[in-house]
């Protein structure tokens, strides 16, 4: 991602296409769209060098609302279309818009493999824990027991946790944010976009029609301080307005009250650059209501990107000059008939 000085004409507005967004009133997607446009402007992204690729689902309409290049793909396959784009023109900045059904159910395989390859993509997973576009069936992230149109007696599927999956596949950048926390979201998006390699962001996104308030705990003023912990690199995990923290007891996190002999230094310190993904994984297992849920950047490490490696091999091969068909056709045994 270029660190060009922001040019004055690059305002969030210029990234809007002429299409009116058609999401439901109150949908969390609006906020994400706004923050993405802000980040594009802040990064100085050229519209013609930016590609948004999506799969299927409510959030996957996203590319139509941006005046960049865009590809609205088929269900679950956005990451592969994006991989093809990136490998064909690594100069492009490529974003993937996907949802919990798109990325974890039908596209689960592709998510794993895209992440392990570390293709330089920025993946935004809009997690609303429901199938919205098909009008309300449970998704792979719906909580156990959730009653939906296709689980009237309660879902008996145990849910997947997107960040655990991403960390399991050893993603080089993993983060979480929330649709209504606009400043945090903008900050995380910017960091994700600047990261070289696969950046994976889970965005808690409210579906006001089919799963309203699924993230009430993290959104509501009265609860959010106690139910979320915002991660900062090299800082202790403190929440509840500084009253509580997370301490590591053997391999398990525990909630402790600060004071009475418990100091910040006793708490778990976040290290997003740790090579081993174990700490990030542990954080991804902290769930409401047992724990406050971590927000922010879980992991940010450097590893060669797939696209750089692919192009690197081609450049190495071409160091002796480009190939000639005349030679290609004559590889191996030839003979001449007079």
């Amino acid at each position, binding site marked *: 991602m270029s660190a060009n000085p922001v040019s004055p004409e690059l305002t969030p507005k210029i990234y809007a296409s002429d299409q009116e967004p058609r999401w439901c009133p109150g949908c969390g997607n609006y906020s994400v769209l706004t923050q993405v446009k802000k980040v594009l402007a802040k990064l100085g992204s050229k519209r013609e060098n930016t590609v948004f690729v999506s799969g299927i689902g409510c959030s996957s309409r996203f590319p139509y609302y941006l005046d960049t290049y865009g590809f609205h793909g088929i269900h679950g396959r956005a990451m592969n279309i994006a991989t*093809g784009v990136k490998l064909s023109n690594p100069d492009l900045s490529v974003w993937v818009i996907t949802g919990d059904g798109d990325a974890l159910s039908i596209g689960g395989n592709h998510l794993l493999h895209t992440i392990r390859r570390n293709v330089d993509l920025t993946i935004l997973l809009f997690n609303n824990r429901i199938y919205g576009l098909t009008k309300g069936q449970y998704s792979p992230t719906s909580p156990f027991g959730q009653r939906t149109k296709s689980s009237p007696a309660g879902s008996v599927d145990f849910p997947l946790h997107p960040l655990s999956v991403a960390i399991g596949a050893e993603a080089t950048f993993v983060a979480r944010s929330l649709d209504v926390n606009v400043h945090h979201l903008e900050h995380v998006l910017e960091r994700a976009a600047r990261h070289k390699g696969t950046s994976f962001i889970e965005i808690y996104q409210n579906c006001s029609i089919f799963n309203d308030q699924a993230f009430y705990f993290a959104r509501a003023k009265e609860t959010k301080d106690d139910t979320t912990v915002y991660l900062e690199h090299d800082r202790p995990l403190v929440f509840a307005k500084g009253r509580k923290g997370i301490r590591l007891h053997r391999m398990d996190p525990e909630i402790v009250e600060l004071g009475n002999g418990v100091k910040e230094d006793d708490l778990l310190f976040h290290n997003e650059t740790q090579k081993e993904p174990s700490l990030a994984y542990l954080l991804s297992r902290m769930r409401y209501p047992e724990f406050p849920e971590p927000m922010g950047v879980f992991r940010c490490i450097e590893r060669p990107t797939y696209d750089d490696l692919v192009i690197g091999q081609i450049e190495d091969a071409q160091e002796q000059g480009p190939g000639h*068909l005349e030679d290609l056709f004559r590889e191996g045994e030839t003979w001449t008939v007079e």
Partner: protein
Amino acid sequence: MVVSMEKNRTQTNPVEVVNREDVVVRMAGDSGDGIQLIGTQMTNTTSVFGNDISTLPDYPAEIRAPAGTLAGVSGFQLHFGSHRLHTPGDRINALVVLNPAALKVNLPDLEPGCLLVVNEDAFTEIGLSKAAYDENPLEDGSLDGYRVFRVPMDVLTAEACKDTGLKARAVSRCKNFFALGLVYWLFDRSPDTTLRWMDKKFRANPAVAAANSASLKAGYNFGETKELINVRFEVAPAKIAPGQYRRVNGNEAAAFGLIAAAQRAGKPLFYGSYPITPASEILQELSKQKRFDVRTFQAEDEIAAITSAIGASFTGVLAATGTSGPGVALKSEGIGLAVITELPLVIINVQRAGPSTGLPTKTEQGDLFQALWGRNSEAPICVLAAATPSDCFKMTLEACRIAMEFMTPVMLLSDSYLSNGVEPWRIPDVESLPRFQIKHPKPGDRFEPYLRDEKLVRPWALPGTKGFQHRIGGLEKRDVTGDVCQEPENHEHMCRTRRRKIDNIAATIPSLEVNGDESGDLLVLGWGSTYGAITAAVDRCRERGLGVSSAHLRYLDPLPSNTGDVLGRFERVLVPEINLGQLTTYIRAKFLVDAVGFNKVQGKPFMVSEIEHEIEEMLDGRTS
């Protein structure tokens, strides 16, 4: 060191020398015996000698079936001759078997009275029982109708290798080369080409190199000096068009076609693929050719393979994917996406026998319907089929041309028979290959994503081009603007437009040619890999005065414009296919002709004689 064996003749006893225009030889053994390797060597040597060749490898789906069993038999058939050959041959003129199972499986294909060379060391009690022989066929008289030569190959190979220091197990792996040496003597071919190859191949392992070359020479010398085998064959070089030649199989030819097309279009090549028999070789070949800016992507599955190629196409490179029928099934939704987004995409389907996993290593033409119609809704694509291994080169170039010229997916049908079959290929002059002039809108041009030209082709505007930012995708789009559009009239217009665009390709393809009389009683119509067998059968029938012609379809959608006209000039149409009648159905539906199918689905290609016989039946002896 390379030793020329030709000068070392010491033979004194008379050997019958049989002159032939062509010979079909098959070598067979256990799948662990290295039969495909010696088959390839024999192919190299005969083609370098100047024969026309056609090959048919036949190996089991299992990497190593239980040794010595009928299921584990691997065979390699080579047809070589002094005239143009169209097929690997119907019946075998010489059979070399390394074990009893190979004898049992292959003997039915050997012509009576013909040569049978047997490794007698393998005909032990255990070997016979693994091959389910109650009696030893070498002893019970069941082989009396053949010219049988029993050779103790295991013993002689061990003898030849005794100074190489290799362990017995490693030595026993050299007997394939002993057999090959003997075959070289039988057909009067020098072992030099193979000795040179061994020098290179086993350079890192001198003991193995020494053992293999000793075995090869021992096999050759056995024929030369032992005077046990009293017959040899001579097949003169073929009279073929002057030029430089190489051998090529269908998969190599397809890979070369993709690279050549990308080079002639001035573009990188993107090939997204998931390994599948019998198409993997295309991926492997392309992955070696990075200096041509070939970007291969071994995807996690078939769907990832095609959708990555679609992303690549959107970005402006030449994009292709290759697979076999089961993979095409998985790619179907992706093909539909390329149809509605109107992006160039080449899909190579190396067909195999199905349904489902079917017979993964065997051939079939079962995917014609799948290619033409195997997608949801109205999703027309261009469908081509290669006729011979080397034709895969030409038709891949055509697939790439049409894809880019018409902004459409193109499926090229090859099959297991073409992909494995090897034939000589006259290396084309690169400058004679078509140069593809690809137009992308430039800043300043008027641009709308679905603004069509006179051929109904939309523009290919590339990400990175300022001012042409646009969004495409799987939702129906309004023509011209490309905005998402659900209107009924627009959808019908777009469906009809996509179909008409494919029809427009017909103006750019060659007419259907007739082999033989332009009109008459019977036309044999084929497509794809049956070309060789049909042509050979029709030529033979015509030599005998029968009134029959043939025509071969390489373009299946759209069909050549004169197809209906050609069909109308014949009283009857016979359609041989390695399926249950797919082209027959298509032709009947399209042209209301009473086409008759001749169908076989055994995982094997047609024999020339089968088609010949069918023609005779239909004509009932009528001459032209």
